[in-house]
């Protein structure tokens, strides 16, 4: 970004190869590292993941 005074703007943008799912996955990983289930993971998906881990 060029121009003066960039400090007065807060711009939230992602990289060209990033998606919303990438952001949520990154945040989910941090939350899981302290034992918190990310609230945006649906119960169905969580149940599937749990079932997969049991059958592994």
């Amino acid at each position: 970004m060029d121009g003066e005074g960039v400090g007065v703007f807060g711009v939230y943008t992602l990289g060209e190869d990033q998606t919303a799912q990438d952001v949520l996955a990154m945040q989910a990983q941090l939350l899981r590292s302290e034992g918190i289930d990310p609230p945006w993971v649906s119960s169905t998906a969580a149940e599937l993941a749990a079932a997969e881990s049991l059958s592994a």
Partner: protein
Amino acid sequence: MAEPDPSDAERRARLTEADLRRADATVRLAWGQLPAAHRELLEEIGASHWRVVNEPLGSVVDGLLRSGGHPGLSPADRLWMDKALAVWIGPLRLMVLDGGHRLMEELDETAYEWFVCNNAWHEWGHALSIGLCSAEDIAAGRRLLELAPEGIRESIRKGGYRSSQYTHELVANVYALLMIRRRQDLLDRPQWLNEEIYELVERVTGWTERE
């Protein structure tokens, strides 16, 4: 300046007023979940307003600045902000959020809510802190970024920010994550967050571990 992307314009044209109302209602939800002291502070400094639009934000921000009597954006800044999900416009004390951004497509209802809340909290993190980061804090941006969790660090690096923006982006990213934890009644320092960064966020946003 690149020409507007016709496929993006066509996609946006298919969005309805209800889509934008949904985004606005989600930002309102995020606002209501901020700590009361932060809402009060933002209201006191005239920084509690937002606008949800369905246009690339560089053009929107440029137009708002010019109509408010401020210099517009440089062509490069405008192009860069066109890709943004949300922008805090310091001179106008206004947050604008792109409610028609392509990255918000194909999210299920729950993920959509959290992502839009995340974007709004990110910008209010800027609104609270941008004037309180010292020159030393900003100069420490590269070093602080190295202390950040890998996912946050990479996300900021990929965003095309200048190193002088690293501290601001780090604070805003962490603030949004602290808000996510707060919604689950977790108010302490996360174990994945470096203590120096946490103390910086506490100092410049007024984050506390109290309700």
